[in-house]
């Protein structure tokens, strides 16, 4: 006797060749908007390339690229309202830069400086490196919003590999049980460092993990910015109006190494990579815009120039920001510095400058 039935759906607007699979909603028919999205994805890609170069020349720490995942980040950034809250994982610079986090601060974070997380979007959480606990924290943020009866939504993200962590599931379960205004986005980029999805889980989709928590999970083509935008927008509307949580699995492919510390050639086949390049999000939207006569090579070149300029300026700001005072490592531990830390602060002052040596200008 069947006592429960479930289906998982897949959403797509733009096919890989840039033609439409279904008609655009009225809202999306605005060409300015699509052009802006294309520009933002380009900007992100330019930034990403630059960041990796900075790392190669020793001016940045380990950095996780987003090559191939631009549509997801930009779409989420666009779908969110200013007063929604983002509780990201560590590969969400594509969302963050649209929410008032300067590229220079993103670089600062990955450049090993805590001040990179002291950014303008006051309620957003900083980059989260330990995997999956951002999701339970996001449930807490959503609970506070619910407690105060505010019409705001929370977005929290995770990689497909991260869905194997218990915290991911605990967050889903809490979101379902408490009907929280929370949107989970799984960035299924096919890889968790070197581990492919087949070794990660036996579930056919990642979207179906929401069934365990009793709410809707769905798949979306993560290379299709229109589809991602639309699904996240709907999920956020639902969240803000008391409809509870949604899980969205955005399917992409990580075209870069896991981070600059990784070498994907050790485990990834060339063929898979080549195939993935035919599906990536920028080409697709460019095809569409071009076919609609909204884009051409000249515009592309101008756009690139423009993006490079923006990024270069941000890089300059990053590179020229003075070091933090050395006592920063102590002064933000507590609102009030306890006695033993005061003592340690003296030691720090005594030895600090010498230790950092000439490379410190704090």
């Amino acid at each position, binding site marked *: 006797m069947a006592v429960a039935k479930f289906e998982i759906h897949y959403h797509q607007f733009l096919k890989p060749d840039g033609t439409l699979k279904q008609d655009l909603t009225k809202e999306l028919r605005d060409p300015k908007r699509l052009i802006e999205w294309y520009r933002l994805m380009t900007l992100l890609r330019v930034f990403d390339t630059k960041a990796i170069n900075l790392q190669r020349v020793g001016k940045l720490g380990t950095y996780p690229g987003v090559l191939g995942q631009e549509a997801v980040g930009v779409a989420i950034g666009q779908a969110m309202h200013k007063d929604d809250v983002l509780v990201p994982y560590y590969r969400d610079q594509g969302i963050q830069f649209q929410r008032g986090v300067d590229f220079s601060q993103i670089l600062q974070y990955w450049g090993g400086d805590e001040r990179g997380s002291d*950014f303008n979007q006051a309620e957003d959480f900083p980059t989260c490196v330990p995997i999956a*606990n951002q*999701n339970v924290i996001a449930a807490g943020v959503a609970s506070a919003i619910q407690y105060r009866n505010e019409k705001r939504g929370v977005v929290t993200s995770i990689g497909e590999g991260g869905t194997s962590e218990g*915290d991911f599931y605990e*967050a889903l379960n809490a979101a379902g049980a408490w009907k929280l205004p929370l949107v989970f986005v799984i960035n299924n980029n096919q890889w968790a460092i070197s581990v492919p999805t087949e070794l990660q889980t036996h579930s056919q989709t990642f979207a179906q993990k929401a069934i365990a928590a009793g709410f809707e999970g769905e798949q979306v083509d993560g290379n299709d910015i229109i589809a991602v935008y639309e699904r996240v927008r709907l999920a956020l509307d639902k969240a803000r109006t008391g409809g509870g949580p949604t899980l969205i699995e955005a399917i992409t492919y990580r075209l870069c190494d896991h981070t600059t510390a990784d070498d994907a050639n050790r485990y990834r086949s060339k063929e898979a990579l080549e195939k993935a390049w035919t599906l990536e999000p920028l080409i697709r939207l460019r095809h569409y815009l071009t076919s609609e006569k909204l884009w051409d090579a000249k515009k592309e070149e101008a756009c690139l120039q423009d993006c490079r300029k923006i990024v270069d300026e941000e890089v300059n700001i990053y590179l020229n920001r003075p070091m933090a005072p050395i006592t920063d490592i102590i002064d*933000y531990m507590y*609102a009030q510095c*306890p006695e033993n830390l005061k003592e340690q602060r003296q030691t720090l002052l005594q030895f600090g400058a010498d230790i950092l040596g000439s490379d410190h200008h704090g």
Partner: protein
Amino acid sequence: MAKITLVEAVTQALAYEMAHDEDVILLGEDIGLNGGVFRATEGLQARFGERRVRDTPLAESMIAGLTIGMAAQGLKPVAEFQFMGFIYPAFDNILNHAARLRNRTRGRLHCPAVFRAPFGGGIHAPEHHSESTEALFAHIPGLQVVIPSSPARAYGLLLAAIRSPDPVIFLEPKRIYRLVKQEVPDDGKALPLQKAFVLREGSDVSLISWGASMHETLQAAEALAKENIQAEVIDVATVKPLDLATILNSVNKTGRVVIVHEAARFGGIGAEIAAEIAEKSLLSLLAPIQRVTGYDTTMPYFKLEKLYLPSVARIVHAVKTTLEFA
């Protein structure tokens, strides 16, 4: 004024702060209708509603996550872990997030949360219900670890913990939840969070302890007094941040120290206190510092748990050892 127990003082502090601050909200397993397995939240859901006293699903990591997320939003959540033995699934979130939020964001976000847990042995509880692992939390930078040992201190310290802008691990010695009653005025007055309490003055030896072991320590002091040995007794209370000044003052006076705690010896907070004394008051020391602690074993099941808990006899013996040292 009626006299109340330590656990009632916890309830009284929670109720006071909830009545005065809408941002205070409670969450945990079975804390609602059931009032918590030790009844620390008894009556609070009836009084403040299900919105403010929330039974959570059974998942401690998630409880910690909820707490941190709420705190970052400016609420003042107080989470209950049913027993300290079940807090470890939350360890990652407490260590990686609660303790770090302020520093990580250079003050942009912070975590005004309290993580409450009953702890310690001696009530014939099942396996895993009797642990004392305060040292694990005290080693984590960014946390505060507070342990009351009387109803009045439970009330005042819990208020302080809830009001603290930084996270507090608030450990309640359940063996003494109902051991003594005290008049505790419900005046909303908090106690300071870096202050040890001198419970008894004396000049011959300093007895330093916290939590349930305070009671054996005080008993030992009384027994010693009968033999004309005057012990100074200190309740550390805020294990972190530690009020070292009060401790060193006492040691400089007495020259002899016995530290008593229920937790395992190796790497316990007793070691930190002894190390600090040995560094800062070495010349005052007339005898080696003695630690009377739990053994470096898993907390035994209850048939043999008494063996594990520091006894009056062990404390007295340790005092005599320091006194006889020449």
